């Protein structure tokens, strides 16, 4: 039970700057998912919290206590590794009990905790097995069990689901979330999979090249991405980005052969170049009177829905996500209309979101 505070944390490996100043407050009992492409520094941040690496600059607090110079074992954390890192020569029971024994806990207390965790995780029948006699999902559970028995202040998860097959991953995702909520333990979960991030997180921290791109509730990142990076990272298929400019009154987005009315006019931004973002799922077919027409290229039919790879006039590629039942013919022309409140405007140079003036004034 503890909050985690990361302030101004930097990490350099020799000349390589991996983290360039990260600030985040994780509330007690919250599940924070650190999301990002590989090499963005997300695992490094987790390892810094765990104490497996030392910070170059900045401060990490767990439960109000500065832990910069503490060994991992003294930080009151437990970690689930990507490849589980179970001790291959120990039985499941001993794997879970090892950390407790090292802390000199009484035998019957260890026994009680291990049996209790095994019951929660459905491992009661496997306590006498060695890790190699277990399936991937069971090993995953043992790794979780090793954390639970410790009753730590913070759970750290380093891409724990990436070695599982798709069905099991979905199941374990749910189990981890339920368990973390039930134990009300603060959790930090690193992943590169946005579905995991969206489903597990109370808040997501999206990282890019050692910096925090955006922190927020999953649906905030989806609905109001702060940058084009966030916009294209969250959501699948990725958001369409179209380069253009606003007309003089700021009421319409203009581009060669394309003109889209904005839900609220932005007179102050009139005439400036902008990047327009539209999610493929925010475009719906309009019978001949749509805002723009596109030539249908490839169609990927996924069952419940289908993804249309098209080109608008001017050759700009555009993805549209349509209900599976809608009939689309390749090489045909498709008219689509964007949902009015689903247009995102970004500065083409900085990639930052251009907010509605009302909200900006309020802020």
């Amino acid at each position, binding site marked *: 039970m503890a909050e985690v505070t990361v302030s101004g944390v930097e990490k350099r490996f020799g000349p390589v700057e991996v983290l360039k100043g990260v600030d985040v407050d994780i509330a007690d009992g919250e599940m924070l998912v650190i999301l990002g492409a590989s090499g963005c520094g997300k695992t490094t941040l987790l390892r810094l919290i*765990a104490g*497996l690496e030392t910070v170059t600059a900045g401060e990490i607090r767990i439960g109000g206590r500065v832990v910069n110079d503490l*060994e*991992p*074992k003294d930080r009151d*954390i*437990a*970690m689930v*590794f*990507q*490849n*589980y*890192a*179970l*001790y*291959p*020569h120990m039985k499941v029971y001993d794997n879970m009990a*090892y*950390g407790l024994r*090292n*802390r000199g806990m009484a035998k019957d207390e260890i026994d009680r905790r291990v049996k209790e965790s095994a019951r929660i995780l459905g491992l009661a029948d496997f306590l006498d097995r060695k890790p*190699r006699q277990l399936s991937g999902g069971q090993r995953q559970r043992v790794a979780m069990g*090793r954390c639970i028995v410790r009753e730590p202040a913070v759970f750290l998860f380093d891409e724990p689901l990436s070695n599982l097959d798709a069905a099991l991953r979905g199941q374990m995702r749910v189990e981890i979330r339920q368990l973390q909520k039930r134990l009300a333990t603060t959790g930090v979960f690193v992943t590169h999979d946005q579905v995991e991030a969206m489903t597990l997180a109370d808040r997501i921290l999206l990282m890019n090249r050692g910096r925090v791109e955006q922190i927020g509730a999953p649906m905030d990142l989806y609905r109001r991405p702060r940058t084009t990076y966030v916009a294209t990272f969250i959501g699948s298929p990725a958001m369409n980005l179209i380069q253009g400019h606003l007309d003089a009154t700021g009421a319409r987005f203009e581009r060669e052969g394309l003109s889209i009315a904005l839900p609220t006019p932005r007179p102050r931004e009139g005439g400036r170049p902008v990047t327009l973002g539209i999610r493929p799922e925010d475009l719906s077919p309009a019978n001949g009177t749509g805002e723009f027409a596109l030539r249908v290229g490839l169609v990927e039919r996924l069952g419940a829905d289908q993804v249309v790879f098209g080109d608008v006039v001017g050759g700009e590629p555009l993805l549209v996500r349509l209900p599976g039942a809608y009939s689309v013919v390749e090489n045909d022309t498709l008219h689509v209309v964007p949902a009015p409140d689903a247009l995102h405007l970004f500065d083409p140079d900085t990639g930052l979101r251009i907010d509605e003036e009302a909200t900006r004034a309020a802020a």
Partner: protein
Amino acid sequence: MIERTRWLDWLAHATVLIGIAVVTFPLWLTFVASTHAPESFFRGLMPFWPGGRFLENYEQVLFEGVQGVGGAPVGTMLANSFVMAIAIAVGKIVISLLSAFAIVYFRFPFRMLCFWTIFVTLMLPVEVRILPTYEVAANLQLLNTYTGLVLPLIASATATFLFRQFFLTVPDELTEAARIDGAGPMKFFWDILLPLSKVNIAALFVILFIYGWNQYLWPLLITTGDQMTTIVMGIKRMVNVADSTPVWPEVMAVATLALLPPVVVVILMQRWFIKGLIDTEK
């Protein structure tokens, strides 16, 4: 894929049988010779089948020593060899485990220099450094002691290298998990690294035991008294008797006895040994 034909099968079996015969025939002769009376060899011909003096010959060498040769009874020699071989094998394993652990898991100045220094000593087997080693051992009053027999042979670059390579294959996450679980370096070594190295240790033990058992040159130099004679030296001495023919049946009985401990070690450790050679257990 090699084609299977009757002719090839025959050839393969014949080759294997010839190979086995080449290896086992001398062993058989040794055994046969150890079961005859000394007179059986005077005509210069070897009998092919065992004779009737098995018990007498072995009793003689084990408890009274070989006839016509002074020196320790064979039992003492066997014990000396056994102590030396065990001490060398265990010592080499302990030392190389610890040095490999230091090299792989700790960052200290000149770490790689240390590793390469150890590695370079591979080029300096006992025979090369035998005179200075003798000088040192003599100055330290180690002549005619077990310490003197064992100590100069106890460091092993090969074993250090093997353990280093093995430790490098142990996933880093395991080390980190142990750190989080509150295991200090030596606890990690004892609780996790050592059990994982079990198979490698067993395999090395067999190899090193035989290496120790078969030492000849160094024991020959370092020991002078009969009480410290090892079995390999002893056999040589029995053959070189002055002014008479060696008592071949008894010499052969000693040779057969000298074969047994390594055989026992190999058989006992066989399962682990083979496992260590062929698989790297995850």
